[in-house]
């Protein structure tokens, strides 16, 4: 009985965190954001060298074959450094979809390319969470037509996984004929979402998703889990920054952290976030080891981290006073990262409704 990270897991997370803290600095983030770059940055390539791209891809396909807990630890580290990389879509959701619903040849072709960093995948499944606007994709005769919105990493991707109106997933070449992409600007410039308009675009169907929604749901759930882990990491840093600021900033001849009001704001943030870490670990662990519970846990991890993340983002900004509201410290990159995580793949109320359905409530 051990509810803790193994030595290997700790080492993995430490080395990725150390790497990101040294390479994915705020300056790097600012520069990447300015150039709207999220792939082929040095950081993305460096992560590739560390084997991160293939973290959940089996060794047979050129990956390192680790579990979702390891993937969550990476996502947390990326959230900590607001890293502008397409990890969640390309290294988690796309491999999950292909592994769960792809045929042998699809696996053989794409998984090694993802693991090696040769190919970046974007993922468009938002319509399966709740359709906004007049979007929706029809599939017939091996072609896709329609509009997918909020395609994760849609702009930077070479290939796309797109779910159609029936929930069947397909692989689409992002640069093929009949595929038009448009950047949707959000508050968070460290990750990109896109609108993808398809007009008779050639589609390579993931046939395992044709007769049941298991693969689709697993793709969404693991995406949610990674977003939760990302929020966990970003929130940790917002608390650390608030505590550090509270120890250093003086007003009324005292460091502000000695004022009970500020101290309690910090204590409340830390208190709310701490059990979230355990929840994310457990939810990630369950994908591999307790699959019966994993749907409910992914929903709860995403929704709960969204709520706590919002509280932390707001409170940390308040602790920083006016400085938190400016661009000077760059604190808003974390604020907005948490803000985007919250909305992607379902905002909390919608996800909780799914959790209710999952329990037959």
């Amino acid at each position, binding site marked *: 009985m051990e509810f803790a990270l193994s030595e290997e897991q700790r080492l993995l997370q430490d080395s990725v965190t150390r790497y990101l803290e040294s390479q994915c600095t705020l300056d790097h983030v600012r520069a990447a954001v300015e150039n709207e770059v999220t792939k082929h940055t040095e950081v993305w390539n460096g992560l590739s060298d560390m084997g991160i791209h293939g973290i959940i891809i089996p060794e047979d396909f050129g990956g390192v074959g680790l579990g979702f807990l390891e993937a969550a630890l990476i996502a947390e580290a990326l959230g900590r450094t607001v890293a502008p990389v397409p990890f969640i879509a390309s290294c988690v959701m796309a491999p999950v979809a292909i592994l769960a619903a792809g045929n042998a040849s699809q696996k053989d072709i794409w998984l090694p390319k993802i693991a090696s960093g040769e190919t970046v995948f974007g993922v468009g499944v938002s319509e399966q969470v709740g359709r*906004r606007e007049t979007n929706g994709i029809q599939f017939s005769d091996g072609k896709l037509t329609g509009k997918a919105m909020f395609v994760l990493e849609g702009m930077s991707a070479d290939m796309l996984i797109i779910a159609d109106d029936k929930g069947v997933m397909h692989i689409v070449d992002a640069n093929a004929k009949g595929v038009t992409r448009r950047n949707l600007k959000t508050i968070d410039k460290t990750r990109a979402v896109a609108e993808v308009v398809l007009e008779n675009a050639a589609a390579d169907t993931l046939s395992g998703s044709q007769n049941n929604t298991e693969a689709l749901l697993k793709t969404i759930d693991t995406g949610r889990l990674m977003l939760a882990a990302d929020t966990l990491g970003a929130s940790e840093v917002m608390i650390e920054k608030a505590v550090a600021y509270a120890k250093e900033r003086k007003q009324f001849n005292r460091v502000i952290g000695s004022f009970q009001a500020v101290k309690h704001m910090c204590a409340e943030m830390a208190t709310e976030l701490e059990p979230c870490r355990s929840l994310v670990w457990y939810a990630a662990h369950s994908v591999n080891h307790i699959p019966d519970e994993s749907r409910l846990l992914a929903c709860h991890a995403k929704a709960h981290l969204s709520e706590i993340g919002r509280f932390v983002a707001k409170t940390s900004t308040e602790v920083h*006073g006016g400085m938190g509201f*400016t*661009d000077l410290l760059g604190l808003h990159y974390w604020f907005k990262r948490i803000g985007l995580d919250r909305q992607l793949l379902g905002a909390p109320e919608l996800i909780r409704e799914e959790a209710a359905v999952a329990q037959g409530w």
Partner: protein
Amino acid sequence: MDLAYSAEYDDFRSEVQQFLKEHGHKSPKGRMGWGKTDDEGRSWQQLLIEHGYAARTIPKEYGGYGAEADVLKNHIIAEEFVKAKARPGHSGDPRLVPTLLELGTEAQKKAYIGPTISGEMTWCQGYSEPGSGSDLASLSTKAVLEGDEWVINGQKIWTSGAQYADMIFCLVRTEPDAPKHQGISYLVFKMDTPGIEVRPLVTMTGEAIFNETFYTDVRVPKDQIIGARGEGWFVANATLKHERGSLGDPNQLETRFGALVKMLKSEKIDGKPLIKYPAYRDRLLQLQARVLSMKCNGMRILSASIKDQEPGLCRWIVKLLGCELNHQMAALAIDAMGELGVLYEDSPYLRDYGMWQRNYMLDLGLIIGGGTAQIQKNMIGERALGLPKEPKYKD
């Protein structure tokens, strides 16, 4: 309890309506206030002053309309201008002009008030410093008297409008050895004085609404001090109070609530309007109760002001509750919009010009600015409830 207006005020309202009917088309578009200025804006402001809808209570000799103070008439003017979507008139910077009227010399009043209310002379405020936020009185920008001039060195922050203001009113430390509240003076000077550098300050919304301003050997004539030397804290403070009361306007809350309802009715998930989702609707209703109670609270403040009574607690709480409520309305809008809720800037599919995300951040800035929530609670606890201050500490 009588929410009707007496005949005098009904007549006054008709007058305002009549004026707006006749002249409303001359109103420039957009809500530009006392901070920025343009030709069209200045002639509109001039027209309003002539009719008593701007600078209403400023004495005639300083370029105002010279009417008796009448809270209700002000309120009626404001209401009718909002209804007609006409740009409201102003009385100059609301922290500066009342200060000048109360504490300026005759020469200062003459020199500054007229041009300020006409819009020829614009102002920015130099109070906060990077090291002095909640503890404003610890400010360290120095002014030393050399001959007939103050020589100013230091840095200010949150100087909104500094890039186009003609003038600044500024707190500086002139008596370095006095206790902190007693060593400050209130100076006014031109922004094109040599030695002033203005750097835009980008905020989390991505805009440079504010500036940092830097002062290096800035020389200002000795007589450009308002009030006595060393009394700048008290000069500034009378008007700071004013500013605090003015945030969290209940009409603005209602307007935003209306926009929220409209959005929740028009946006849909899988074809069903958001307002039909009980989890969103219940949050909306909780906010509605708060908006209504702030509206009523606002009427109570107005009513007390009419009778020249101190409204007490019901005024103290406006900033704390109003900013938070605005923030929560934006939060609900974002949540309900789902992924559409994160769109920003000039993104395709952007809703309501991106105002919900922008407000969500701006409101957080307002929760912090002009007295953080924590400072507000201290004040309410100590001044309204009479709880003791923290004891003095050993240094």
